[in-house]
């Protein structure tokens, strides 16, 4: 066990990475924080999960401040779908008492691997298009809003500095997205991580939003979902101050870097990084489900 100051510095550095990845992809950063703390630094798992919940809130608030100002976040979509995620978070607490954890991890991994294929084919298609036309692909096919999305006025717009153009996009399949968001809430309450992946998939794949708007809106939403569980973890004493402090500070710094990266990267590059991290999460979850490693 290293000296406490060294330990705090290692946690701080790992958390900067978590903040960059989390703010770029709309995830909480738990995918980095939990294994870094529990596998490499041998910190008890419940304290690692407590710190991970703090990292979710720090990533979300830190990056959403910028994304909301720069309009990457679709506030109306985010706030509407928060009904589904917060309800899911409450349901999750009860489902945990009925279903065995391992089953959930395996289901989670299977769903991610299944969603990986369309992501990869989209990246390949966009890269080919780039090679042919030599114009930077937007990484997105824009669609018109359907009836429900129109009645809720969910369509959005943002300027993408990387593609040098303004996107005006519609939204479709609100009930489908609502359903996946409910599942995202359940998973984040049950497993401590993973809410963000499903939120991005719900908006990008199911509702047809641009990838950058999806990760930025997911970022905005995960803070609210996590705040519910964070209060519970905090009062239970699972948020250790000396572990959570460097996590919070590192993640805030990392999210500052990540938000600047997102505006510079092309949509298809964001999708590629997202697909890679998705595969890593799937493997991590499958290992947990089959009881290998922490």
């Amino acid at each position, binding site marked *: 066990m290293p000296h*406490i100051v060294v330990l705090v510095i290692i946690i701080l550095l790992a958390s900067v990475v978590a903040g960059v990845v989390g703010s770029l992809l709309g995830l909480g950063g738990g995918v980095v924080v939990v294994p870094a703390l529990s596998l490499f630094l041998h910190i008890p798992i419940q304290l690692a999960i407590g710190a991970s919940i703090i990292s979710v809130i720090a990533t979300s608030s830190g990056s959403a401040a910028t994304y909301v100002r720069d309009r990457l976040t679709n506030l109306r979509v985010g706030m509407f779908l928060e009904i589904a995620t917060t309800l899911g978070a*409450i349901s999750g607490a009860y489902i945990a008492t009925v279903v065995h954890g391992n089953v959930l991890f395996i289901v989670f991994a299977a769903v991610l691997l299944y969603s990986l294929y369309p992501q990869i084919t989209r990246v390949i298609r966009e890269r080919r298009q780039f090679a042919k036309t030599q114009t930077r692909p937007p990484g997105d096919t824009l669609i018109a809003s359907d009836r429900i999305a129109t009645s809720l006025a969910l369509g959005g717009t943002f300027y993408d500095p990387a593609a040098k153009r303004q996107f005006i996009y519609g939204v479709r399949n609100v009930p489908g997205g609502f359903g996946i968001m409910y599942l995202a809430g359940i998973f984040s309450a049950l497993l401590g991580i993973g809410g963000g992946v499903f939120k991005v998939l719900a908006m990008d794949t199911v509702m047809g939003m641009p990838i950058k708007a999806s990760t930025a809106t997911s970022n905005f939403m995960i*803070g609210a979902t996590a*705040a519910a569980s964070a209060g519970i973890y905090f009062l239970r004493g699972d948020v250790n101050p000396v572990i959570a402090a460097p996590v919070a500070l590192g993640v805030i710094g990392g999210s500052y870097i990540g938000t600047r990266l997102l505006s510079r990267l092309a949509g298809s590059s964001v999708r590629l990084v997202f697909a890679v991290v998705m595969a890593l999460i799937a493997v991590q979850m499958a290992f947990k489900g089959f009881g290998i490693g922490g």
Partner: protein
Amino acid sequence: MDAIKQGQGETKEEILATTAKLRRMELVVSAVLRIGVLLSGGVILLGLVLFFAQHHGAALDDITKVPFSYQPGTIIGQVFHGSGTAIILLGLMLLILTPVSRIAVSIVTFAVEHDWRYVVITTIVLLILLTSFALGKAG
């Protein structure tokens, strides 16, 4: 882009009008989040520095085994005694409250904009969130 022009859904102009109306909301929400992050980050940093000044030779085991009080009242009491640990916990509490304040402030802003449907939607979210806090305490 073409799909937007021809679609029977929201037109380009409607989307631009909706998002233009949302500008004030975006600036308010962004400011609340930025203040929350800077304030909690500053408090946590101060607490961490004080903690190191107060616990020179501490090992991780000492820290994970020391029973802290996580009751907000007790934490605030200890903050006034200059406890680094308590100041970190105060900062973490402020961080957890940031997304909750963001929701509360957006209810008010939607009301100012007379966007009653989103006043209802955001109020439902806040109520669900408060319910889950209460359920957590009870369980």
